[in-house]
């Protein structure tokens, strides 16, 4: 009896699913058909060199038809599928008000990143055939979406938009790799050239509090051991911060780990290698496996282990998340930070006047890995959904063009004139007091400019077509305030002056460059191979092994323990197919290396 019912039950399930799967297949082929129609012809794109591109630009501006005039009478809501955003919902506040007034558009941002399950969102929306009106994706994903017909071609329109055409060389170069047509617009482009590095700081190098360093008599740092010694001395002299909370030389956090521990990944750059998945890519255009014992990953893991042996690693490192670690940075409870943007938590003009800013410390044997500014693009691209009609498309193009215009860039990278910055007599800009504090305090915006506070009203798309370091043709300075003369002057504090005196250079980039400790690696924007399912599975299994073993190694009891954990990791990885992964990644990044060599 029971058996029969079970059988009936199963039969029902099976037949229903069989019958219905047929229908499902039908639905699938519907979404598939436009893909076949629009699948771009395979065509080897000719390499366009800079001169040609420049010609093209001139030619195009000559013959460019004027952009179609579009009516702004009707309010238009644009769905923006945005992998960079930290906010889902309507763009509001001062930036929303500008878009509304100028173009009568409202952005409805869909942000997989904050949704908690971005992969599911991406899969369902692409399976249903509509990602959004404006689409921002990583290069590789965009390529697949173009391939299956989710993205519209804008080759017919783009030449009428002068601001976008200023970046024609880069746009054309990226799209040449796809096939016929212009499908995507790279982000973070500039006009400074492919090898320029404009910033005053490098992405990653040791940064320690200058006042404590001064107390120790500013000893020279020749090796990593010296750095550990300095941190040990600092922690001995200042076991707590001023509020009396326990402080440590180094603190780490667990929630950013990828294929390997993120904290170690950042430090590999001190010794000329960058972690990319399972391989290390060097400033010298080498590719080696992450598990190479001569590589920087092992070296920096070793550094953390040594530091822990010296008692300067926060015991909570393996269990705390970024929020807790970040609080410690803000409260001066950790004496080593590495990324340049972390100085945003530790430094300010006031602290700098006291001589207590965290400053970059060159170690004599260091060779810093640093890519140049994105010239060709950052790895993410904008596209337009294939389902939008011509009228809507014209309005989107008009909006994208404004995003690339000097006016649009200033709004995106700085903010409202009058509130965030003022214009000097010579046309350059100065940040207002509110402008200086816009990231750290709540700046209220007047009701007639959109109301609310500045941060909530800021551009939530969080990705820019034009990079902040690009030169503003209006006044010849960069779009971001970091390099404005007025800004540099204000930031030239006691700390900076003392630092310059000791190192005899204007800033850390200049010091590193002039001492042969860094040559920026040309930044490349190309679409890399996507993991096949097999590789994806290997990757996710290996990453657990690498991360767990790395943490255990850092907190190993002794030298022998450290080595044993490392060796055990390597042999385990082999069982999970690590070598296939390394082979895949080596092949994946080879085009990048080739392109970098070509720039030289």
């Amino acid at each position, binding site marked *: 009896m029971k058996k029969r019912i079970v059988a009936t039950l199963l039969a029902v399930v099976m037949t229903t699913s069989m019958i219905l799967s047929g229908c499902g297949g039908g639905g699938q082929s519907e979404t598939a058909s436009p893909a076949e129609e629009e699948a771009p012809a395979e065509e080897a794109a000719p390499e366009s060199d800079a001169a040609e591109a420049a010609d093209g630009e001139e030619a195009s501006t000559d013959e460019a038809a004027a952009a179609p005039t579009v009516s702004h009478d009707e309010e238009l809501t644009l*769905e923006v599928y945005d992998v960079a955003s930290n906010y*889902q*919902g309507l763009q509001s506040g001062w930036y929303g008000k500008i878009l509304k007034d100028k173009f009568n558009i409202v952005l409805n941002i869909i942000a997989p990143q904050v949704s908690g399950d971005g992969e599911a969102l991406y899969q369902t929306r692409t399976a249903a055939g509509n990602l959004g009106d404006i689409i921002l994706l990583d290069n590789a994903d965009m390529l697949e979406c173009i391939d299956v017909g989710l993205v519209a071609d804008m080759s017919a329109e783009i030449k009428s938009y002068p601001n976008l055409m200023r970046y024609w060389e880069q746009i054309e170069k990226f799209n040449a790799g796809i096939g016929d047509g212009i499908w995507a617009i790279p982000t973070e482009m500039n006009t400074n050239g492919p090898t320029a590095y404009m910033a005053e700081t490098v992405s990653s190098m040791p940064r320690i509090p200058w006042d404590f360093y001064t107390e120790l008599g500013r000893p020279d740092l020749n090796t990593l051991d010296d750095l550990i010694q300095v941190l040990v001395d600092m922690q001995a002299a200042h076991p707590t911060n001023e509020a009396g909370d326990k402080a440590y030389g180094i603190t780490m956090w667990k929630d950013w780990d990828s294929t390997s521990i993120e904290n170690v990944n950042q430090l590999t750059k001190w010794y000329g290698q960058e972690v990319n998945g399972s391989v290390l890519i060097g400033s010298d255009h080498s590719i080696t496996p992450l598990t190479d014992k001569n590589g920087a990953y092992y070296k920096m893991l070793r550094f953390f282990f040594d530091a822990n042996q010296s008692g300067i690693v926060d015991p909570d490192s393996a269990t705390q998340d*970024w929020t807790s670690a970040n*609080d410690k940075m803000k409260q001066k409870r950790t004496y080593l930070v590495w990324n340049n943007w972390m100085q945003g938590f530790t430094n300010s003009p006031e602290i700098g006047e006291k001589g207590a800013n965290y400053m970059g410390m060159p170690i004599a044997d260091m060779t810093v890995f640093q890519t140049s500014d994105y010239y060709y693009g950052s790895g993410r691209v904008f596209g337009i959904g294939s389902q939008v009609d011509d009228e809507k498309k014209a309005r989107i193009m008009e909006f994208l063009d404004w995003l690339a215009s000097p006016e649009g860039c200033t709004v995106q990278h700085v903010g409202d004139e009058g509130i965030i910055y003022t214009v000097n007599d010579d046309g350059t800009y100065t940040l207002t007091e509110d402008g200086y504090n816009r990231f750290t305090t709540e700046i209220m915006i007047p009701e007639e400019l959109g109301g609310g506070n500045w941060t909530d009203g800021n551009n939530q798309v969080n990705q820019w077509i034009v990079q902040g370091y690009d030169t503003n043709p209006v006044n010849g300075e960069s779009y971001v305030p*970091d390099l404005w003369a007025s800004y540099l002057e204000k930031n030239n504090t006691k700390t900076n002056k003392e630092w310059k005196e000791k190192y005899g250079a204007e800033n850390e980039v200049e010091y590193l460059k002039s001492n042969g400790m860094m040559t920026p690696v040309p930044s490349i924007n190309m679409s890399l191979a996507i993991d096949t399912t097999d590789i994806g599975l290997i990757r996710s299994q290996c990453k657990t092994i690498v991360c767990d073993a790395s943490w255990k190694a850092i907190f190993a009891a002794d030298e022998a323990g450290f080595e044993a954990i490392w060796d055990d990791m390597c042999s385990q990885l082999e069982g999970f197919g690590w070598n296939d992964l390394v082979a895949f990644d080596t092949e994946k990044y080879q085009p990048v290396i080739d392109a970098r060599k070509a720039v030289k």
Partner: protein
Amino acid sequence: MSREIALKKRRHESFGDRMVSVVCYIVFGICALLCLYPFYYMFINTISANDLSSRGVILFWPQGVHWKNYSSALGIDGLFQAAKISLMRTVLGTFCTVSASAFLGFMFSQDKMWHRKVWYRLVIATMYFNAGIIPWFLVMKNMHLTNNFWGYILPMIVSPFHIVLTKTFVESVPKELQEAAEIDGAGILTIFFKVMIPVIKPIMATVAIFAAVNQWNAFQDTLLLVTDTKLYPLQFVLYQYLNQASSLSALANTSSSSSLAAAAATTQTATSIRMTITIIVVLPIMCVYPFFQKYFVKGIMVGAVKG
């Protein structure tokens, strides 16, 4: 009268009975404390000066009391609309689920139903199935339930877990009750509405609590089905703030502009704001429980039949 009996009882309580009482009070007191303290801890941290709470020194009482966390959390755009949607889906969704569970729980206890067991098993088995999101999404889309308020309600109506609970309860009701009504010539619907519902109120209240909390807390369906911001529920609007810290890791590798990266890093949500949001979301739904508790009353059963 009953109080008199109770008083008499107390005088006659044995030593063992009193020990039971004492132990109960102590154990439950500790339980309550363990459950209440973390919540209290969250609350005092949300109203204390943010720099003190991030240092972790606020443990027993608030210091530097301020309500800025609440005012800024309540100032989030579209919060009112989101609260309205949450309220609507909770009320409507709970009503539908409770009615359907009560009805189906009752119906599935009717031995006379044609192939009752097959249908019952068919429903129960769905509790353990997961077809995957893509086919589910396509089904919802084909039925025009994307960007549609009913997409929140319809899939939740038949809820196997609640049906099982209700059916178990219905089966504990003495059969005489239904038989008596049948002899009086009542139809099945009359029996359900007139005889059964008054008796199964406690389990309906339980289902209501569960269903209401489910509806209130749901945001996964919004994530996949809805892009119309007018249909975002409260949980969804606030949930993103709990999620932001994890999305920062991507930043570590972007070196483009230090100030911009730092800016993005500072937009991440402080723990105190996350706690504030939790409290704001939890408080309204907390009121549901005491409200339904009054249906947990005893003594309507066999007496009613015999009388």
